[in-house]
């Protein structure tokens, strides 16, 4: 099983880089939802045996991250009727390189004492840290509100990976609560996106500084 877990984790790392380098909003959303599906599969393969709680968590996670959230975002994108290109603050190549630095740093230096010797989890913590960092990069270097939502999702994926270590100990209710939070967050942001669009006829968050009173 560690082989399968590690395979999924490195594909998640690769998807991080592709999300950073892609210029089309639609494909970035698809990449992140693919990442969500892969992560949804992780609890099933992580511990070698399948429990009803893990099955439920995986099912709800996959349905939410692969179908509901992407369709909400694509709908917001369609309603806002904006140019479907990511507008980065620092260019695609620098963001890829930043992401690579974050990934390399996490792989080389980030470990958690006590857990790190186990072969099965040796990649979990570095991957989770790298994904959180990439989420930050996406959040801070993109102008459009929708791409910031994508960054938020990647960030949440990173935290989800970290939570996998506790999946046995964590009650299902907490897991579902996190997913509900995510869902509500995205829901609210989708509405905000529409309002930003209605007020400024663009999704550029730089316009928000001109809000007064």
């Amino acid at each position, binding site marked *: 099983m*560690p*082989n399968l877990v*590690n*395979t999924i*984790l*490195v*594909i998640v*790392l*690769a998807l991080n*880089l*592709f999300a950073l*380098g892609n*210029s089309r909003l639609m494909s970035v959303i698809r990449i992140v939802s693919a990442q969500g599906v892969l992560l949804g599969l992780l609890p099933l393969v992580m511990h070698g045996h399948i429990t009803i709680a893990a099955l439920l968590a995986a099912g709800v996670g996959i349905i939410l991250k692969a179908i509901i959230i992407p369709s909400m975002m694509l709908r917001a994108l369609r309603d806002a009727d904006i140019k479907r290109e990511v507008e980065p603050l620092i260019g*695609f*190549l620098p963001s*890829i*390189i930043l*992401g*690579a630095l974050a*990934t*390399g740093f996490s*792989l*080389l230096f980030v470990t958690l004492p006590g857990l790190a010797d186990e*072969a099965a989890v040796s*990649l979990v913590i570095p991957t989770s840290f790298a994904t959180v960092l990439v989420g930050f990069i996406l959040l801070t270097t993109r102008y459009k509100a929708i791409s910031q939502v994508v960054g938020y999702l990647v960030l949440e994926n990173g935290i989800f990976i970290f939570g996998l270590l506790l999946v046995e100990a964590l009650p299902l209710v907490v897991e579902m609560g996190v997913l509900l939070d995510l869902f509500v967050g995205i829901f609210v942001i989708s509405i905000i996106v529409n309002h930003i669009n209605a007020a400024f006829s663009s999704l550029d968050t730089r316009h928000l500084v001109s809000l007064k009173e």
Partner: protein
Amino acid sequence: MIINLIVHFCLLILMPPLLLGIINKVKALFAGRRGPPLLQAYFDIGKLLRKGMVISRSTTWVFMAGPVVTLAAVFCAGTLIPLGRFAAPISFTGDLVLFAYLFGLARFFTTSAALDTGSAFEGMGAAREVTFAVLSEPALFLVFFVFVRLSGSLSLGEMLHLAPAGYVSGAVAPLVLVAIGLFIIMLAETCRIPVDDPNTHLELTMIHEVMVLDHSGPLLGIALYAAAMKLFVLSSLLLHVLQPFKSGLAWLDWLIFAGGMMVIAGTIGVVESVMARLRMNHVPHLLVAAIILCGAAFVLLVR
């Protein structure tokens, strides 16, 4: 032993155009067409070889040498690489450098032949080809670093045959990264869709097709055949990472190898059907991502 050598050369010489046929068939299926027959690439090359040639008076011997040297170099690279579970005809320590630079030689002569025509379009294609090669070559070397580190050997034969052992010893994560990186390198080197569109003849968007624009008849046939063989050689490199199984029976292993190559060709067809070509200035991002993936694989191995 000798039979395996003969099969190696037969496959290396005869199979490449079939891969092009499979790619085109898959693309046709996705588009809802019936598509050209599987063997169309053989017919095309045969037809071109029987035709006459028109050679511009402003060109020199370099123009003639371009496709010929390219084919020769790619063929030599094909003799260095082990196919499936079998040993390569030629193998020595350090042949991975020769393998990588045979592609460099092929590229040098293709671009020189393109520049020799003095056409502005072909010069543009040559410039793009070498620009992208600058990024795909280090990625290829990083792939080799990973294999060298895994196997502790510097010859392609031992290195690639030991790589599947990584699946047992827990080095799966680097191998997955290498497989993704190698797939991108292969698409870039053989000018397939996210990087270049082999079907367009629009000067602004293409790389390989624009460089062979002035070649006609047998020379164009040779250029097409060399491109197909390059695809074959690089796919067989990728197959080493993807397919670690070994049956022990020689004929079955050859069948598995041929089947694996067809699956890779089918995958390329699927990628070409579902993706659009990247904008020219976004291609380097993809290649840098390939470098980073292979580098991350190396970091994973040494940490």
